[in-house]
């Protein structure tokens, strides 16, 4: 369907209704965060909210976690496929998480979708996803080990809870009290959305709201096409290494980006899927591709289905970037982050001077779990930022999340209150930034002490392969793990003893431009601030301390 085929609606009304739709998804997001219980949502905001149109296309998404777009993409089509649309009623709430049945991109992301009816007509879907930090300490040989698989099923039917289903779900969770409370927050967010959308349709008339929704997608498409058309036609190639502490060998991932007029084909390639939780299902790949292209070409394009229309995304079926059942997907964010690096690398060739160097390229995750005195299980997941890539005219940002994730940290004062852990250090790491005329951002070191015996695992990347620089800029420091013993294999779950100290260092960001071009003042400041060592000042920048 192209932008030209539809009835025109005046651009002013489109903008006015677009503002109202954005208000709705943002309100949903705030309600979800504020009413939730688990640290992963209430403090780390690992959740997203969206409106989908009646056909199942993304209409509007709140600015939370780009990866969650992947969690949303499959769900409405899957509901439409599995259920008789005639039998879908107001007050039905669908729950789903399974990567292969149209749920999310990994099992902890639980999606709730509720149809919005106005005057008996289906006008839109309220959808939100929250990362439930559960299903911990399980296997990743295949998806059956990773937690309870839930296809789209009705948690509520016409407003009435299906308690049997909820009981079965809760029994499969390690921390059922958090799950039930977070589900309640998710329900409340969707209820708000239904109410607000109904009000909006009553105010403007359903037809006008639907037409505006279509126009907003056409609008995003036009902006995307305009931005692609500005790139010279051609094929831009890039390849990068993907390594993980959870997998013995590094893998080579590739992309060919072909620009033809106002359309773009992103053809990815990678090795066959693995028996480990590192595989991407296709919707994860799409979320990564859409996010990255938008962030480079035009960050202001609305994140709705229109932006995807000029883009084609491919990867061989059964490969790590487009896995097939029953591949495990729990740690899909790691390879997704490399997908963003691939796209940045290729677009840097197409648009020199417009793309930053590689960021830390990870979503470094630490998971702790253990048992309370009363026998209850606790699970704590956190992700740690690192360096951002240097920009063409500015240093990279330090201690941030890059790419598809943007979760907050948990305040130390909340962490230590809720879990038997002490955080000893949280700091930027000297010499972790890639050198350059503009240097990368600095990586982060986080040092924990277990106060009680517990289980622990880390998901890290860029251990061996380090974030690359651009235009002569240097590579950043890679990830460094230290579990307080002499191990060299950091895969799988490990047991921590009371008092054991573990340290996680995340990668920095790559540099931009030849280091010889960096101003003496900037080098002197970095030296005074301890961001670089005297030795790095001398060897990389030729400045004596």
């Amino acid at each position: 369907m192209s932008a030209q085929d539809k009835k025109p609606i005046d651009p002013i009304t489109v903008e006015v209704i677009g503002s109202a739709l954005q208000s709705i998804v943002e309100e949903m997001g705030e309600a979800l965060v504020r009413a939730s219980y688990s640290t992963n949502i209430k403090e780390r905001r690992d959740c997203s909210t969206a409106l989908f149109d009646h056909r199942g296309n993304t209409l509007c998404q709140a600015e939370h976690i780009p990866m969650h777009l992947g969690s949303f993409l499959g769900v409405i089509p899957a509901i439409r496929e599995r259920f008789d649309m005639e039998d879908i009623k107001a007050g039905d709430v669908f729950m789903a998480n399974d990567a292969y049945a149209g749920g999310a991109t990994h099992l902890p992301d639980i999606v709730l979708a509720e149809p919005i009816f106005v005057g008996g007509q289906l006008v839109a879907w309220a959808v939100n996803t929250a990362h439930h930090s559960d299903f911990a300490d399980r296997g990743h040989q295949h998806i059956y080990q990773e937690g309870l698989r839930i296809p789209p099923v009705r948690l509520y039917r016409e407003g009435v809870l299906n308690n049997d289903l909820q009981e079965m779900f809760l029994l499969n969770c390690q921390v059922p009290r958090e799950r039930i409370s977070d589900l309640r927050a998710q329900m409340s967010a969707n209820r708000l959305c239904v109410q607000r959308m109904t009000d909006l349709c009553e105010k403007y008339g359903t037809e006008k709201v639907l037409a505006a929704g279509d126009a907003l997608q056409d609008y995003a498409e036009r902006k995307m096409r305009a931005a692609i058309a500005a790139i010279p036609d051609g094929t831009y190639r890039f390849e990068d290494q993907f390594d993980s502490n959870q997998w013995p060998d590094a893998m080579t991932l590739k992309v060919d980006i072909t620009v033809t007029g106002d359309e773009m084909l992103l053809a990815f390639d990678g090795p066959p899927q693995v028996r480990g939780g590192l595989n991407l299902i296709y919707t994860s790949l799409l979320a990564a591709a859409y996010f990255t292209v938008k962030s480079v070409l035009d960050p202001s394009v609305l994140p709705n289905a229109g932006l995807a229309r000029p883009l084609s995304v491919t990867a061989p079926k059964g490969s790590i970037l487009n896995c097939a059942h029953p591949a495990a997907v729990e740690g899909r964010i790691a390879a997704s982050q490399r997908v963003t690096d691939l796209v940045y690398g290729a677009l840097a060739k197409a648009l020199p001077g417009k793309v930053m160097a590689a960021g830390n390229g990870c979503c470094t995750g630490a998971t702790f779990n253990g048992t309370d005195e009363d026998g209850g299980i606790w699970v704590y997941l956190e992700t740690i930022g690192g360096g951002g890539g240097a920009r063409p005219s500015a240093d990279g940002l330090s201690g941030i999340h890059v790419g598809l994730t943007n979760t907050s940290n948990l305040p130390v004062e909340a962490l230590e209150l809720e879990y038997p852990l002490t955080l000893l250090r949280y700091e930027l790491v000297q010499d972790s930034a890639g050198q350059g005329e503009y240097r990368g951002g600095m990586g982060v070191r986080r040092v924990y002490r277990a106060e009680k015996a517990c289980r622990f695992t880390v998901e890290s990347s860029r251990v061996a392969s380090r974030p690359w620089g651009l235009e002569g800029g240097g590579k950043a420091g890679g990830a460094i793990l230290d579990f307080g013993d002499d191990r060299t294999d950091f895969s799988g779950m490990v047991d921590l003893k009371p008092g054991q100290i573990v340290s996680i260092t995340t990668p920095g960001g790559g540099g931009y431009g030849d280091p010889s071009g960096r101003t003496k003042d900037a080098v002197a400041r970095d030296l005074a601030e301890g961001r670089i060592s005297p030795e790095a000042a001398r060897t990389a920048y030729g400045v004596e301390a």
Partner: protein
Amino acid sequence: MAWRIGVDSGGTFTDVCLFDEDSGKVEIWKVSSTPDDPSRGITTGVVEGLDQVGKTAKDLSLLGHGTTVATNALIELRGVKTGLIVSDGFRDLLEIGRQKRPNLYDMMAEKPEQLVSRDLRREVPERMKYDGSVDVPLDVDALRAELQLLAGEDIKSLAVCFLYGFLNTEHEELAKRVIAEELPDVFVSTSHDVAPEFREFERLSTTVVNAYLGPVMQRYIRRLKENLDEIGLEIAPQLTQSNGGVIGFDTAANLPVRTVLSGPSTGVVAAQAIGKMSGFDNIITFDVGGTSSDVALLQNGVCQLTGEADVHGYPIKAPMLDIHTVGAGGGSIANVDTGGLLKVGPRSAGAHPGPVCYGLGSTEPTVTDANIVLQTLNPVEILGGRMKVRRDLAVESVQRLADSLGLGVMEAAQGIISVVTANMAKAIRVISVQRGHDPRDYALMAFGGAGPLHAARLARELDMGKVIVPLTPGTLCALGLLLTDLRADFAISRLLPLDDSARDAIESGFADLVGQAEAWLDNEGIAEDRRVLTRTADMRYMGQNYELSVAVPAGPITAETFRQLEEGFEAAHRQRFGFIAEGEQIQLVTLRLEAAGVVNKAEFKPQPEEGPDASAAQIATRDVWMAEAGDFVPAGVYAREKLRPGNVIEGPAIVEQMDTTTVILPDMTGTVDPYLNLILEVKA
């Protein structure tokens, strides 16, 4: 014979509002601000204002002052060289923050500038546990060594923030004593003094901002005091804070962070007083300036306080009125983006060169230009004739926009108004629907230079039935200074279950707060019978992380208190989130005490009705474009100063006054109330 004076010092003008306690008369005076040293403009304004009424500084019984000194110093990064002392291992927390990047999609976005450079952020061995017990005692020798190093760097200010400093103040207090010995001339802020609340990064950020601004504020206040002494002021002047109250100069000098959002707060206070006298309890305020709009919600005449806000990228924890700001004002620029949609703001033309119609060289149309094209604003001259405008230039610029949209010039001009109205409506939804309030239950109070111009359309967009335009919309903040009490807020974080086991802890917590409040009231010289203390508690379900504030009834804490707190919390939770979690443990998080020193405030006297005929106030008829008609329609133009109580104006009409223009839509009437407020309503 005493007069009161409110002085609001802004970027361009310093507004002075005088009030005669005997007659209830209000006088307004405006002078140009003196940004290099704002105290000069203020002193001039006070002297000239008093001249107008034949008085001198000796006749004043109250001087209230609103200032943007702290805010501007933060935005323009003109604070002092500041050091920081933190717990070992955490010097980079200030830079890492909550680890989120500044913009989700725009990789070129920057984090806010670091107020303390990394080499001046010093760690000392020291650590508390989550329960406030000491894990590692403060190493005083190490602290002294770090202070010596900072002394060598010639810092002017020092922030101290240790983990759990809100819970156990011992280490921060000890550090403060050591600093007083080692660096006696340095301004010191400790986290337990500035923001004694849970969550270390936000507490740290607030403490650092306070330290960074402290010496700037001290210097400003010293100079202002000297100037005011010179003109013979005999009373102690007062300064506004972000919570809408005023404090004495000494407190303000120590806690400048409490003033960074004070700018719009007195406007809200004035709106509250005007609403009360005119019989409106539920109000949404709408304050529109050149670059932004500030909106706030008053339920039963009260604006909620919020504990935290982001000020130019710096999180600040301080009690402040819950005011929401959006980048939509008269100077907001309209453009058509690459996708063909019309966007307005947040870019603004500012005061120079200003909108296209000023004829100072701008070519991009603004909201003001759209109003000139539509002739809702006077197409010849504005500001009561002080400024000529060029409608021809405005039309040209809007025409260019219209061409790229494929619309007529008038439709494009109306489109700019519709889009900016939608942006303003979005801001109002944040403070109303998102907090569980229906805007239809509220009246819209419009002020600021451009509020009354857009209020009628905004009210229609949100289905709000009434708009109140106060008599002096352009100087409401200065007026608000005459209507506010002395006020300070005290808080203490205590995580406790809401049940009888917490009774002693609550009693002792409030006793501590009352002690602090009484000390402050003593210091401000407030008589016993003028003191009002109000207790609230922030609560949540155990496991949640955001709290809801509930009033704590007066008297000893009893079983009945707990029952009332539980009921209050459940009502608040239901309003905000639409559900309650029955059977879940409710948890107390923060105890708060608001201390007010009640001062005699300006009181307005109603004037007798003079009948509905407004024809004496009509000064012209002008063709004004009305979207409803799709055409120019003749509208009566009225002079605000000639309107009398009881006068009724039928829309479409325009009311002009020096500091603003009010639009009355075709299906609306405007009625002048006994306090000379203009009340717009949809015709029955």
